[in-house]
């Protein structure tokens, strides 16, 4: 299959190597500031709250709530031609960060999906080096 027909895969950068390594190992990590205690997604070299560079990695407990979603019917990229309809989401982790993701294990019907519904972490293997953190309904 030509490259452009594949789902786009992330190309990790120096500040995100650890994030993607941990995802491959089945863990979701994010940054917490050692100076002000703020948490942030996505990984950077500075805290966007206080500008400290004293950042540590925290592992998420993998629980959160649905902040918003869309049900995608028209593939926005050739790599998603066989994936529609699928559910994109912004998930609010219980630790306080919001992150983009997809919902799995639920019908792509508006009536089935509630903002605020409880979600838990799962992983989807994209290729040999990348696993994507995704979310499914709790229970």
């Amino acid at each position, binding site marked *: 299959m030509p490259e452009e027909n594949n789902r786009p895969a992330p190309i990790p950068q120096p500040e995100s190597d650890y994030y993607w390594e941990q995802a491959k190992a089945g863990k979701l990590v994010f940054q917490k500031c050692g100076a002000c205690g703020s948490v942030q997604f996505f990984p950077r070299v500075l805290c966007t709250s206080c500008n400290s560079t004293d950042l540590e990695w925290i592992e998420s407990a993998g629980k959160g709530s649905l902040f918003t979603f869309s*049900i*995608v*019917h028209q593939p926005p990229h050739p790599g998603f031609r066989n994936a529609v309809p*699928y559910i994109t989401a912004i998930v609010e982790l219980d630790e306080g960060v919001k992150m*983009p993701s*997809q919902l799995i294990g639920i019908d792509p019907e508006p009536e089935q999906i509630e903002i605020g519904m409880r979600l838990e972490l799962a992983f989807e293997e994209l290729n040999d080096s990348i696993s994507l953190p995704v979310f499914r309904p709790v229970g």
Partner: protein
Amino acid sequence: MPNIQRLKNISGTAAIVGVAESDSLGKVPDRSPLALHAEAALNALDDAGLQLSDVDGMFTAGWSTLDVAEYLGIEPRFTDSTSVGGSSFVMHVAHAVAAIAAGYCEVALITHGQSGRSDRAPIPRNPGAPMTQYEYPYGIIGPPVSYAMACRRYMHEYGEDRTRQALAEIAVSTRKWANLNPRAYFHDRPLSFDEYHDSRWVAWPFHLVDCCLVTDAGAAIVVTTAERARDCRKGAVTVLGAGEGHDHSMISQMPDLTRAFGRNTGPQALEMAGVSHADLDLAMIYDSFTYTVLVTLENLGFCAAGEGPDFVADQVTAPGGSFPLNTSGGGLSYTHPGMYGIFTVVEAVRQLRGETGDRQIDNCDLALAHGTGGLLSSTGTLVLGSS
């Protein structure tokens, strides 16, 4: 923070003296994007009664000014490739005013050209950028998906049914304006409320007709000093107020999905111009999606947060209504090549000059043009006045 007193000093010191589209809009496979820039540039300069040799300031987005100026064969002494999405060209007008006031240039040319429909070589995105790393792998790609997620959050906060009705009102009223504009893609195609609700899903909650067109088109604007404007071919349109900025790039980083940056740029532009909402005769608000219009009306302060659905009810934004909005037919029904913002200014100028034929609104002396770029990321607002 912007210094309003200093901004007031340059309010009205420069004017838009030329606006134009490319010769053809819609499906234009026989023109490259740069050819659309050039065509629109020549048309806008002709509109102003000026020539390429008069131009000493060059502004564009999407492409670098290097490419466009080289294609045109000019050597600008002020150059600005600010490229923050479809709002960029609205910002360029403000940048041109500032550059002219400071003395960097005297005749500013702002060009746009995109073959959204027919491009043989679309520009790829940097695969290491945060957006391509963290959102693209999930299929959060392109405007419809991102704006749809913002709209779904708005529905959650302010009510799904009344939001849906507002989106339909905007789609239908905008189409009515397009039906009056011979250059609009959907000039000959009316849209009913039933057709709105029956339209297929692109990214729920968006129907196809909640989404803008994808066309080929170019446009250009010429700005010069208020003094020199008096010698130009047509009535000058004075730039009275402006504001710009952005607060995120990826939709998942947007601080509040129902509050875009127009919350800052709208009030700033009005204050700089020394006018209020009630003084405005026309609002040209970038309609990448029906939701973009709904949320922007609130953000700019035309109504309070969550009151947009009441504000646009009963087709008040349609021809003959009390609040003329997007009189060209907008990105939804006139043209939208990818970064539509420049066309909000083109239409505002034409309305202020009184040259829009069947869709001309009465006594149009003060207009607001507002661009939104990226994924509800950046906004630029202008207040323009007839001279």
